[in-house]
């Protein structure tokens, strides 16, 4: 099992870009429909969190300023993450033991899909690296009705130059190594930001508990024939999320688990 007590739910993190324009915190003043708005009433935001007590309050409150339904999956944290998230207005599901981010996402989806009226689901990392405005835009994209799932990408042509060359090459190579990712034309399958509909939520069965779930997600999209598209998003590289970044070496685990996946009974 991949231990990730030192690593967050996001892979990989890059060093801070020289122009740190992504750092400014998103504020709720930007085009915010009030909670309970008809556009957001059927949306569930799934936030897997492991020892994120420092930031979980801000992240949940930011989300709650737009979305009425937020579920935080506390993955066996020892720092009170669950209580803080609950106080901030999130539903909280607590794993009795640490299972890994993939398991946390699966738990969150199973919780959200059992709630009455749930129709749109989004995964959102707990360390504050995503922007709520990106989720809003991705939900609009999903509501177009021609796709089942929208995945965020940090490699859109407009932002491609901001990732260090070596890491960009390695990540693109990792994407190329995955046949499913190649077939679907995905460029950033390890982005934590995903928005999907009921079809995907009802049939999602992530079995990789640790950090290899992103590749598994892509494989499931491929196997089930879900219609997928990418949407450019911005990643906020705060000092906090940087300090929790996973070493690139973890990519070896992810690739290895991806190869073994087909040989497992489900």
């Amino acid at each position: 099992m991949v231990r990730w007590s030192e690593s967050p739910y996001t892979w990989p993190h890059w060093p801070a870009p020289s122009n740190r324009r992504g750092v400014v915190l998103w504020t709720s003043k930007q085009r915010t429909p009030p909670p309970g708005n008809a556009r957001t009433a059927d949306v569930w935001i799934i936030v897997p969190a492991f020892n994120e007590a420092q930031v979980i309050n801000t992240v949940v409150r930011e989300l709650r300023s737009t979305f009425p339904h937020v579920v935080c999956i506390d993955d066996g944290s020892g720092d009170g993450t669950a209580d803080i998230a609950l106080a901030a207005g999130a539903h909280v599901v607590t794993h009795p033991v640490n299972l890994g981010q993939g398991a946390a996402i699966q738990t969150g989806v199973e919780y959200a899909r059992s709630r009455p009226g749930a129709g749109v689901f989004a995964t959102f990392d707990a360390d504050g690296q995503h922007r709520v405005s990106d989720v809003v835009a991705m939900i609009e994209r999903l509501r177009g009705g021609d796709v089942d799932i929208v995945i965020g990408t940090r490699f859109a042509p407009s932002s491609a130059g901001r990732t260090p060359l070596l890491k960009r090459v390695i990540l693109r190579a990792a994407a190329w190594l995955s046949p499913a990712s190649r077939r679907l034309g995905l460029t950033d399958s390890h982005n934590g930001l995903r928005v999907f509909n009921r079809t995907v939520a009802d049939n999602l069965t992530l079995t990789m508990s640790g950090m290899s779930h992103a590749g598994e997600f892509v494989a499931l999209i491929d196997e089930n024939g879900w219609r997928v598209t990418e949407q450019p998003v911005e990643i906020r590289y705060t000092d906090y999320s940087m300090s929790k970044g996973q070493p690139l070496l973890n990519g070896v685990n992810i690739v290895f688990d991806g190869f073994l996946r087909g040989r497992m009974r489900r």
Partner: protein
Amino acid sequence: MSWIQVLLISAVLALLVYLLRSRTNAKAKAWVKVGYLLFVITAVYAVLRPDDTTVVANWLGVDRGADLLTYALVIAFVFTTLSTYLRFKELELRYARLARAVALRNARTPEH
């Protein structure tokens, strides 16, 4: 019969007894047991007549019977390692499902 032969044969027989006593209910394990029985017979034979393994080795283009046994051991080890890895993965998945069921039962909803 030398002492090492006595030791090896009793070890193999002890393993056989252990295997037959455990997991008696699983029908799917029957072939594993048949295979294991063959392995025990071969092992006892090889212990009693070690030179015969060299004859088999020569059929396969290997010089010494001991070398042949080493190769077989390496293959068996790799196989065991991989099947253990997959078994652990499967157990991990069951464990995750159990923990998930517990977690979903104890979900907390916010007051506002």
